[in-house]
């Protein structure tokens, strides 16, 4: 309450500083995507005044098939995020709410986590061979499956933590009211962990959206080529196509940004207010 204003001024100052730090490079990237090569290296750099050109965007999305990569990326990201959230949340719920015999739940949680510890570089080849043998090589399906796998540990651990935070009474009430466990999960628990769910979703989406190595290994033709691989292709043997990469980067960023904007409103104060006495 006291010196309310001065406090909030300070707060704004700090936040804006952080924003500046976060967004300057992005703005720079934006300018690069609109600059001709000569201007990109100008010293001192042109932050604001330069002759903009859409050349690089045209190059990326008209001359090259980045448009198609974008679609593939979108499909893969959305599907894998969806799957991961779905099955991961269920598992998280079980691990948070049931006590398995012989501490099995503990072991499971740890194992699930550990699947994320192995460096992907080494698993890439066996997975490549696996996909070859099941005939999924060079398909979007293969990427969806893989990314679901990558995101699962995260989803499970994240959501498990949030479930543990929710007063158990609420669920009990739901079940006494005759709701099935899953019904209670859907109608009571999930709305209450919306912040966690939102954060998790954003993160999963980002991971699958930007994954590079496996996309590279599993794609054989444009059929399954994702945006990051396409973008990386602009680092050529002799030069780096800064403009095209930035242009693609800008475009790649937008969908996620929109999504983040959309879900961030769920990042609101936890709702267990007034729920239970104690």
């Amino acid at each position, binding site marked *: 309450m006291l010196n309310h204003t001065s406090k909030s001024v300070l707060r704004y100052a700090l936040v804006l500083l952080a924003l500046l730090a976060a967004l300057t490079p992005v703005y720079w990237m934006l300018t690069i995507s609109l600059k001709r090569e000569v201007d990109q290296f100008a*010293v001192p750099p042109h932050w604001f005044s330069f002759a903009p050109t859409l*050349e690089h965007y045209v190059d990326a999305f008209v001359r090259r098939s980045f448009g198609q990569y974008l679609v593939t990326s979108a499909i893969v990201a959305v599907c894998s995020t969806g799957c991961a959230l779905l099955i991961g949340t269920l598992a998280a719920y079980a691990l948070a709410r049931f006590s398995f015999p012989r501490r099995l739940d503990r072991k499971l949680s740890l194992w699930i986590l550990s699947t994320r510890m192995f460096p992907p570089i080494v698993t890439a080849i066996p997975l490549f061979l696996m996909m070859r043998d099941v005939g999924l090589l060079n398909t979007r399906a293969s990427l969806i499956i893989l990314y679901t796998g990558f995101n699962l540990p995260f989803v499970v651990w994240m959501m498990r933590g949030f479930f543990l935070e929710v007063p158990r009474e609420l669920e009990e009430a739901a079940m006494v009211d005759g709701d099935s466990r899953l019904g209670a999960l859907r109608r009571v628990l999930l709305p209450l962990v919306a912040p966690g769910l939102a954060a998790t979703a954003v993160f999963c989406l980002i991971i699958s959206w930007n994954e590079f190595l496996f996309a590279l290994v599993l794609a054989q033709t444009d059929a399954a080529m994702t945006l990051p691989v396409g973008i990386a292709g602009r680092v050529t043997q*002799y030069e780096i196509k800064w403009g095209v990469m930035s242009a693609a980067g800008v475009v790649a960023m937008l969908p996620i940004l929109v999504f983040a904007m959309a879900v961030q409103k769920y990042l609101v104060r936890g709702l267990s207010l007034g729920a239970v006495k104690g």
Partner: protein
Amino acid sequence: RRNEPQSGKTLTLAVNSGVEGDALKQAALDYEKQTGVHINIAEFPYANLFEKELLDLNAHTGAYDLIMLDDPWFPKFGKQQLLTELTPLLESRGQKGPDADFVPASLALGREPYQTGALYALPYVGNSQLLFYRKDLFAMHTLMEPVTWDEVLSAAKIISEQETAGAPGGGKVYGYVMRAAQGNAAVADFMPIFWAFGGEMFDAGGQPAVNSAEGIAALNFMLELGKYSPPGYASFNADDVGAHLLQGTAAISINWPAWISSFSDPAKSKVIGKMEFTAMPGAKNPGRAEIGNWLIAIPRDSKNKEAACDFLVWATSAEQMKRSAERGNPPTRKSLFNDPELVKKFPAYPAQLRSLESSRPRPRTPFWNEIENAFGIYLSKANSGELSAVDALNQANTEIAKILERGK
């Protein structure tokens, strides 16, 4: 002709995303129009293309009917028998082999063993290093086109010391710009000097000999040259070098022909018409460039070898290669280097041909990647001042020895 390519067929190409790939892409479109054979191009970053192809071919997926290879990769593919021998396919077309128009140095790259062995790939892009320099500055300071490394050094010295504000935008012009990033970059810029100073990777017994007296002299010379290079060159790659040249902040460098067209592109270049290109300078030995050709081969597991071969022959034919040349890729055919139209467009072609014919491949060992990596790290360390030339080369030598040891 017996196997007329029947339309409706599909070929899949793995190409390097870059000018070479783009050229082949264009060609593919034309080919499709002509023959109705659909050509499916898969572009991959240069940094990963090798791994990608190796993995895929080893896994026998048969996904690709044709692949582009940078020549240093070839020994690995050759040794592991992953490619289709071309001669039989050519003979089945009534050719006894590749025609004589190919530059021998380039064609030799596609044979395993080198020069003498069976033919597995045809050269498509005839890169070999050139010495780039700013003729305007050279003229200004009354300097001759350098033919020895010492001349390069003194020229670099003079320009560095005098052109402190000569760059567009008023910056300093560095006499020389080299790339000493670990790995490929450092090695590529070092090899010409190394060879010119009489160094050899391996002695007669096949043992590593980079730390020979000549080697040490060469590296010391490189460091000397480094004094006139922009700060931080120890981490430079081709793009940094290109940027410096295009921005007019450096006067001399070793680089690849692929850059030549850029200098006349106003969207990129601040030095239009000021660049000159020439063959490698020499020292104790005559100058020899490192060759860096792009080859095209047919994987063993391709299911359309015939059709693939048809395309290969077509794409490397004189008239197609001319189109690719017009798109900025140095050819691998003598006839094209001497083609008046092209020479008019690319005045450096004579120089390039000379350089190409006298060029040397990187040592042809399947462990080249590993060796280049280790060697490059120490070269880079020397250039960044972490190690003295002697220590760097000694350590490099032992590492290389280890690698060969493991290979046995």
